[in-house]
């Protein structure tokens, strides 16, 4: 495949859909977002799979996985259930939250609805509490235009501290720019500074005090700061996960998997 770069080229030129071929991948990308914002449509566009899409919130309740290759990098995409928040106890929110925390994706695409940006940003801010490596895809731009809504993605990018890209998942508009942003964030060439809601000084002190304790109790835990916030909030599920050691084992498992994977890559590279 030639790698000439031109702006007029369609995104497809460098995108190779790999469907379910997931045996080897270099990076993991998660798709998060509110229900019915087009995550599954984007997932299908990227992977060439035919994940069921439907115009109703809550359609995806399990996570779906697929693969694609962009600029010679192989990605595994995980389509998470759509949620309004990450704070409640329903199964779909748990699936999404657990993956963001313990799956440690190399990048998370947060898909938002351009026609209801304010509501969507609530979830964006919550996801940014968990992960640094995020790209905001402002989807459904066609519907927004029809409704006379203009979205300034540069302003959004600046305010959120992570790249924001305008897309229309159904037609492929903006897909190339989105994938470049994903590439930059997941490879670390672009360092993000996600906005974090700070809270009162007393709250900040409490969080700062808990973080080292959590790291000691569950070594290798991905985001101790977020766990600390949830513990202060009295999240029974997170408390339980810490007490039963699930937190530690989950982090452990993910680490082992990553190690096995790099060993495999190293071996294959040596051949």
């Amino acid at each position, binding site marked *: 495949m030639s790698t000439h770069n031109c702006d007029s080229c369609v995104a497809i030129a460098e995108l190779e859909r790999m469907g379910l071929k997931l045996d080897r991948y270099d990076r993991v990308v998660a798709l998060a977002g509110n*229900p*019915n914002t087009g995550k599954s449509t984007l997932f299908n566009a990227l992977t060439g799979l*035919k994940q*069921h*899409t*439907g*115009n*109703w*919130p*809550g359609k995806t*309740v*399990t996570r779906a996985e697929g693969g694609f290759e962009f600029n010679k990098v192989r990605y595994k995409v995980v389509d998470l*259930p759509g949620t*309004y928040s990450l704070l*409640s106890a*329903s*199964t*779909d929110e748990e699936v999404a939250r657990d993956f963001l925390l313990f799956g440690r994706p190399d990048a998370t695409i947060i898909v938002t609805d*351009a*026609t209801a*940006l*304010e509501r969507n*940003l*609530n979830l*964006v801010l*919550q996801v940014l509490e968990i992960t640094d490596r995020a790209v905001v895809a402002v989807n459904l731009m066609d*519907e*927004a235009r029809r*409704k*006379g*809504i*203009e*979205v*300034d*993605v540069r*302003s959004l990018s600046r*305010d*959120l501290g992570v790249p924001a890209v305008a897309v229309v998942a159904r037609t492929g508009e903006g897909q190339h720019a989105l994938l470049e942003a994903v590439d930059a964030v997941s490879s670390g060439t672009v360092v993000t500074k996600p*906005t974090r*809601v700070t*809270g*009162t000084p*007393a*709250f900040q002190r*409490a969080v700062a*005090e*808990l973080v080292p*304790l*959590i790291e000691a*109790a*569950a070594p290798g835990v991905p985001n101790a700061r977020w766990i*600390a*916030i949830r*513990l*202060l*909030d009295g999240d029974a599920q997170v408390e339980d996960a*810490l*007490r039963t*050691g699930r937190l*530690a084992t989950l982090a452990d498992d993910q680490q082992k998997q990553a190690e096995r994977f790099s060993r495999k890559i190293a071996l294959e590279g040596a051949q």
Partner: protein
Amino acid sequence: MTSRAEAADAVLDRAATLRDTLHSGFRDEAVRSIFGEATRIARRAARQVADRGFDLDQRIDRLVTSPIFGLPIMALMLAVVFWVTIAGANVPSAMLASGFFWFEDQAFAFFQGLGVPWWINGFVWHGVYKGLAWVISVMLPPMAIFFPLFTMLEDLGYLPRVAFNLDFLFRGAGAHGKQALTMAMGFGCNAAGIIATRVIDSPRERLIAILTNNFVPCNGRFPTLIMLATIFVGAQFSGVFTSIAAAGAVVGIVGIGVVFTLAVSWALSRTILRGEASAFTLELPPYRRPGVMRILYTSLIDRTLFVLWRAILTAAPAGAVIWILGNITAGGTSLAQHTANFLNPLGQAIGLDGVILLAYIIAIPANEIVVPTMLMVYMGTTQMTDVSSFDDLKELLVVKHGWTLLTAVNLMLFSLLHNPCATTILTIYKETLSKKWATIGALLPLSLAFLVTWMVATIWR
């Protein structure tokens, strides 16, 4: 491990102490600050530049979710979908059936000519092949029409409106309003409907939704309902009214299913799953133009062929079992007849007969094959050759086997209410991880089916 547990407890203690030092409103404050931040960022990034103009979406929504027209429009849409399905499937079904059965006769004669022993030849062609031929000709045309129509409504964004319209009923029954969504998914497949209950937060309401999902007929049961409605209800009328009346009967059955869903939800939420209905927000998404190719793909490949394949996988062995039962004789009567005779008193008590119950037992793996199984047992016992049209079918059932309108009505009710198929029961187990709930999920509908059909039969007589 112990040191880890101790460390965890230490963290939790410290967190509890720190929580006390924060003033009580900090939690709301945190949520409020996220909301405030979201509002600020959104204001800066998004602008309403042009007038929204005429908002068609909102006009349509006012109509389809209106307290007066909402429910009638819904029933009417359902009726239209069924009518198109029934009217459109009739002819291709009959054509497929006569084609398949013609081939069966030719093949049987051909291999007989080659000197293949009758029991191998009969087993293959009159057993396995006939089972497959039935399933395909009865199921394929209705599914190939129904699924694309249903997928189109789903893609358009109509399902959340259905949930909106039915919300007050579910809340009244102590169940979650989103149960209307999972119920709608059950029309496709009850196992899929049960997986869809994950959108319901509260475990109590989710269990209610799981246990009652069976009361909407899945596509495996639709062909049964459609066939019975056509033969027994539609045939009372003539011309165009045939299919309209049949569609009306199917809508009626679905309506009864919804009533049972609500009634059982109500009963559950007042007995073993006591509690209040919880509040939730439901977004009414904008209407979107459905993608034709995607609809065809989803509905034909993902749904129709998937379901058909599953039916074929179970129909072939079932056809074999029936052929064996019908051709091994003990004391002059076949095993099938013996079993049917044994079940007959129970069948008669609920307005059905032994053969129908036998068919339901053989069809536990998949509901799709109930009718073919039943017909094969009937045909096996009366030496009737082929049934290629609905008229022949009526002749077979009414004249040869004494079916009445009561039989048809009770069979529709039994089909609507009886236990879910093995796949669904397994799904209930996987979703609840409890043998108790899986058992209840199977036995509750089954006993209800017996109770209701027995009551109808008793009152009727």
